[in-house]
């Protein structure tokens, strides 16, 4: 159909090649900091991808998605503190708790629309934030240091920086693949359809609520996985990771990259975090650029970077 070598595909391809080959450069030069930085980027891209499933495609603007990063991370952290360091126990439990949390929150929130939906997802995120702050045994606001990363019985050593990075990258690509399959399936059609016209979808006979809730749960679980990865990456978890402004950051990544595009969240994560790293070395006041940039994109460039790239080959 379309040409393969569009600007957009070239950029995405180059990015993926770069991400795949980064560890080689790092090991060769002995400079490990870029790997640390990009591991973080990949993990947050995973979180943003999960949010994009419901926000970008489903139009469900959840302003409390960072809560799942926290829930996933805290399951790993709490179990680690209590002596259970096996990843085979921690990670499935993290996913299960996130699924349960998403089920309950979604069941309540999805009854509302528009700004009320935004507010109520925010409220639930704040609630879980305060629960974490109140957990005195697990550090509360001071956070919890994780002394031993998730153990996988020798299959993979998460303390190995390169191994861990490739694991995160693999999981990100798997997530993007899952999202692409979902949105192009019947499930995806319903979600996307209900975004633009709720009533029509209902009239056709689809149980909208159930589909949306399922999407919500899947997105929550995916983000919980990102949380488990983040906790392992930083050897630390604190309530700060769930603050509503962090949910805002995820949304910013999606908007920057391109709402409702497969690789938009990854592009957005790379852009935002590289801006943060790079610009912050040039000037402390880099955020003064990001703010108006965001506003500009919202008003004029609705498709984000992905949209800009796609439009380069339109015609």
């Amino acid at each position: 159909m379309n040409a393969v070598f569009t600007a957009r595909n070239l950029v995405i391809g180059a990015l993926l090649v770069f991400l795949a080959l980064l560890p080689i450069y790092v090991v060769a030069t002995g400079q490990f900091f870029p790997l640390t930085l990009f591991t973080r980027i990949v993990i947050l891209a995973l979180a943003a991808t999960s949010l994009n499933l419901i926000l970008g495609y489903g139009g469900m603007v959840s302003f409390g998605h960072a809560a799942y990063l926290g829930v996933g991370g805290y399951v790993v952290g709490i179990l680690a503190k209590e002596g259970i360091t096996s990843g085979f126990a921690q990670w499935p439990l993290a996913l299960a708790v996130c699924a349960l949390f998403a089920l309950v929150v979604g069941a309540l929130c999805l009854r509302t629309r528009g700004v009320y939906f935004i507010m109520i997802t925010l409220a639930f995120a704040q609630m879980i934030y305060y629960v974490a702050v109140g957990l005195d045994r697990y550090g509360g606001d001071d956070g919890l240091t994780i002394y031993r990363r998730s153990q996988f019985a020798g299959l993979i050593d998460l303390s190995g920086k390169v191994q861990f990075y490739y694991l995160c990258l693999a999981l990100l690509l798997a997530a993007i693949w899952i999202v692409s399959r979902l949105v192009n399936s019947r499930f995806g059609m319903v979600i996307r359809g209900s975004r633009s016209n709720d009533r029509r979808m209902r009239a056709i006979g689809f149980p909208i609520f159930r589909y949306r809730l399922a999407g919500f749960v899947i997105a929550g679980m995916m983000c919980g996985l990102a949380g488990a990865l983040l906790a392992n990456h930083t050897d630390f978890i604190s309530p700060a990771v769930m603050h509503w402004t962090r949910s805002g950051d995820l949304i910013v990544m999606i908007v920057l990259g391109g709402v409702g595009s497969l690789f938009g969240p990854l592009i957005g994560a790379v852009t935002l975090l590289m801006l943060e790293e790079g610009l912050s070395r040039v000037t402390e006041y880099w955020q003064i650029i990001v703010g108006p940039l965001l506003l500009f994109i919202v008003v004029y460039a609705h498709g984000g970077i992905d949209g800009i790239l796609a439009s380069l080959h339109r015609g």
Partner: protein
Amino acid sequence: MSKTLIAAGALMVCVSQPALAQQKSVKIGFVSTFSGPTAVIGNDMRNSFDLALDHLGRKMGGLPVEVIYEDDQQKPEVGKQKTEKLIESDHVDFIVGYIWSNVLLASLKPALDSKTIMISANAGPSQIAGELCSSYFFSTSWQNDQTPAAVGLYMNQEGVKNAYLVGPNYAAGKDMLTGVKATFWGKIVGEEYTRWPDQLDFSAELSKVRAAKPDAVFVFYPGAAGVQFLNQYVQAGLKSQIPLYTAFTIDETTLPRQGENAIGIPGAQEWVNDLPNDANKKFVADYKAKYKASPSFYGAQSYDAANLVNSAVVAVNGDVAKKADMIKAMEKADFASVRGSFRYGNNHFPIQNFYLQDVVKGPDGMLGLKTVATIVKDDQDGFHDKCAMK
């Protein structure tokens, strides 16, 4: 400003010589708070550290010194990130600073995992004095429980029968209140922990204090919180009714805003600006001349940290790769500390005196902190036997 320049300079060094193996300079990373209301503490520490470097001629063991200052924004996760960045990206030889115990605890693992020598110039959480102790960690301050324990002793001397304790709900706050309870003989009629760091309105807690009618109140509120608590204590009319005993709540950084409210309110400290040793006289005088302000204990501890680092680098003649030798040298505490000489315990925390300080109005009408008495000599923290090191 200079921080950005130093950071940019360090970045250029990193980028232009990727395989920099041999040491051309001594690199020190300094993590403290440089934004928000407690930036005044971070600035005091930076000024003092810088002054120490001036006194050392900007060289240690013949090598030029490079310091990279990073802002932890008073948040554990930010402090941790900055610590990691200093270690992994800037490849510092020493990491110094840390006002807040929770920030220090979050940043400990990256430093120790990378075997970077870490010096706390303020925070002294009980965990690091005990089970989390490490040969790579040194303190030039105190252990959190020690200072309030000294206050507790003083309260006994003053005949206080019962007390109400108030402090912030984070690692240091808990340590402090525990410290008072360790030495104070009287009854604890109330114990309040407030949200940290954003709760600066103490009306609820002050109402409870008033209702409990204790003989005395003990409080620990560093920085801006200390200013607010003290001023609100006075505004609520409590100062004239119930004596207040403090730790880390009144110091040279908070005094300008507490003003006359602070007169007559005692506190304990391991350093007061008028300690009669030569190093201290020079430190205070030169600080006042250079910065037109009085240094606080945060600054004094940072000044000592610089000299501690220097003693290590000198001992190995600039070969900072010899970490074990540097650690041995540091354990001797072989430098002129502004608090007078002290020695290190097995957990690398100082064994030192604690003094009673009070706020008085000088002949020129200016308020200042003065040493009133020595509360306890050669005090060692109570956690050193939980530490596995000998």
